[in-house]
């Protein structure tokens, strides 16, 4: 296995600390208090299904919540500095400067009427005082860095002339143009072909090492998590339900939702046509905006007990920074011993 199991990267100094973040849209709170830290140089994955609040969490860090959304509570500290209360000017210096972000849809995230070079140069010149010529030279370097073949020919191309994978590479070049400390990747491969996904994630991981940045990887793809993340946060209905190292999580999921997710993933060795039975699915659907009493997963949970619907279960912290918000499974003693896998 790779080296980080011996020397976990997650043990570096903290780069980003999110504490009890709540995002509100009027009366509704799609993010209901989430806390996590990202250490320098590590890849933290946030997993969860659509509507779990993972993208809103990422956008809060960028200060790019959609219209109507506000940070109702909590703090976000980046390099020890509170960034939720920054003046617009300072926030802009952070965006694209110290924190870069790439999005899910490379087809629509690039401006269709500007050349890709112009879009990279624009980001460079916003944060660094470069001459046009120097910025163009740097843009060529960046295109080379993200492995766009023949950058000299490609730099004056428009986005429509590139494939989806190429566009996502350009997006990555834009995001890392100013050597950010943190790269937020919001479902960076969801819209891409499976064969391209691995290439893009490999690229992000290589850049993480070369540029010594941390990566916040938002995804719903557990395969991605197992291969590229140092730590995983599982979100459900706006809250963190479990946090673990991938190997621990895959080996021994402690929250019923995490278990459900793992069971719902197809596995190598399963018959292709599910002759032995259909692929497991978690019953019901997410209702993050429903009543706030009790565990949000209780209506869909196979292990639900009487107490589950009364109060939101607290996050219990176990060894190695592992956290889980389900007292029911934890109380099963045989599991507690297995936690430290």
């Amino acid at each position, binding site marked *: 296995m790779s080296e980080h199991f011996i020397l976990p990267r997650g043990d570096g100094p903290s780069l980003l600390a999110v504490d009890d973040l709540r995002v509100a849209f009027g009366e509704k709170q799609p993010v209901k208090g989430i806390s996590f830290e990202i250490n320098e140089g590590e890849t933290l994955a946030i997993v969860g299904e659509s509507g779990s609040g993972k993208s809103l969490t990422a956008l809060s860090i960028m200060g790019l919540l959609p219209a109507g959304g506000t940070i109702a509570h909590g703090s976000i500290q980046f390099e020890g500095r509170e960034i939720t209360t920054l003046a617009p000017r300072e926030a802009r210096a952070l965006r694209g400067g110290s924190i870069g972000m790439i999005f899910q849809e490379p087809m629509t995230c690039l*401006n269709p009427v*500007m050349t890709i070079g112009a879009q990279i140069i624009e980001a460079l010149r916003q944060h660094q005082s470069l001459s046009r010529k120097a910025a163009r030279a740097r843009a060529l370097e960046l295109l080379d860095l993200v492995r766009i073949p023949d950058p000299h020919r490609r730099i004056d191309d428009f986005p429509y002339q590139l494939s989806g994978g190429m566009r996502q590479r350009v997006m990555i070049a834009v995001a890392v143009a100013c050597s950010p400390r943190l790269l937020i990747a919001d479902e960076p491969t969801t819209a891409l072909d499976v064969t391209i996904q691995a290439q893009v994630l490999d690229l992000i991981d290589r850049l993480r090492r070369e540029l010594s940045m941390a990566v916040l990887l938002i995804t719903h793809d557990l395969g991605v998590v197992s291969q590229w993340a140092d730590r995983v946060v599982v979100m459900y209905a706006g809250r963190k339900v479990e946090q673990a190292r991938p190997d621990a999580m895959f080996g021994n999921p402690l929250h019923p939702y995490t278990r459900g997710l793992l069971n719902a993933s197809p596995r190598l060795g399963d018959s292709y046509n599910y002759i032995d039975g259909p692929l497991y699915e978690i019953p019901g659907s997410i209702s993050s905006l429903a009543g706030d009493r009790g565990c949000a997963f209780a209506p869909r949970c196979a292990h639900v007990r009487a107490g589950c619907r009364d109060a939101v279960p607290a996050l219990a912290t176990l060894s190695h920074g592992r956290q889980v918000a389900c007292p029911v499974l934890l109380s099963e003693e045989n599991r507690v011993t297995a936690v430290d896998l």
Partner: protein
Amino acid sequence: MTSVSRAARTAWRTGLHAVPTALGVVVLSFLLLQLAPGDAVDVLAGEAGSATAETMAEMRAHYGLDKPVGQRLVSYLADLAHGNLGFSPRYNMPVTQLIWDRLPGSLMLAGSALVLALIVGVALGVLMAAREGKATDRVLSVLSLIFYSVPAFWIGLMLIVLFSIKLGWLPSGGSQTIGSSATGIAAVLDQLRYMILPTVSLSLFYIAIYARLSRISMIEAKGQDYVRTARAKGLGETHILFRHVLRNALIPLTTVAGMHVGGMLGGSVVIETVYGWPGLGRLAYEAVMGRDFAVLLGILLFSSLLVIVANAVVDVLHGIIDPRVGGNDATK
């Protein structure tokens, strides 16, 4: 593909298309105009009041109006091939010269109205989009709806009432002070004064259209993913507005404005009549009333050529604004 080679290709293609189009316009118009009762001689005779059947027949023979339709069409087309648009019985001068005399007035009016409409319309649209849903947006939306629905001649008359009659600031009609001996800058300024009211009346309708169109396309563009990307780069709002939002919002506007170039020449018939502006529109109106079909055909031909040229220009502009248009090298 560079925009120069694109422009050259468009010019070539336009030239190829222009000939059959113009020919079709001329033949169709010629035949349609035969359906109108009476001819130029009827009108001239009616105005003279003392014409006899013999003099009328003589005049028809003189202007070639006594020949069968087919023969007249062929001889008209033959003349056209030599660049001769015929002769106007009413004005007693060649049609080509008539049109050349009136063309600058029309182009100036339509051109200035289009430029004014684009500048003011886009500015208002940007303002409305920025204040979406607020009082400014609401008031401007209602105003633009009013100017969109009110007919141009009524606006023209009301402007005359207000600025010429009540306030006495601007002349009510014509194109320059009669008997003015001003030269140089003074003459230009004098003409500008006469242009203001017709230009404004003609452009108000288009201002309303462009304001509403640019408002909606600005709002749409603002919600696009690439605008979020621009924010994620840390760009300033003004930069985002002009480089990312406006640039994309202008694409539908060029299409619509391009189609209006032809319409504006037509629309100026009313305005030119209201303000006594010496342009093609008024000439066309007078030609219809005088059954002066040679003039009318010439104007129709000219207008169709203008529309063809305007479309070609818009085509080229479109390619510059939106690189996706006409780029057939999508996948290299």
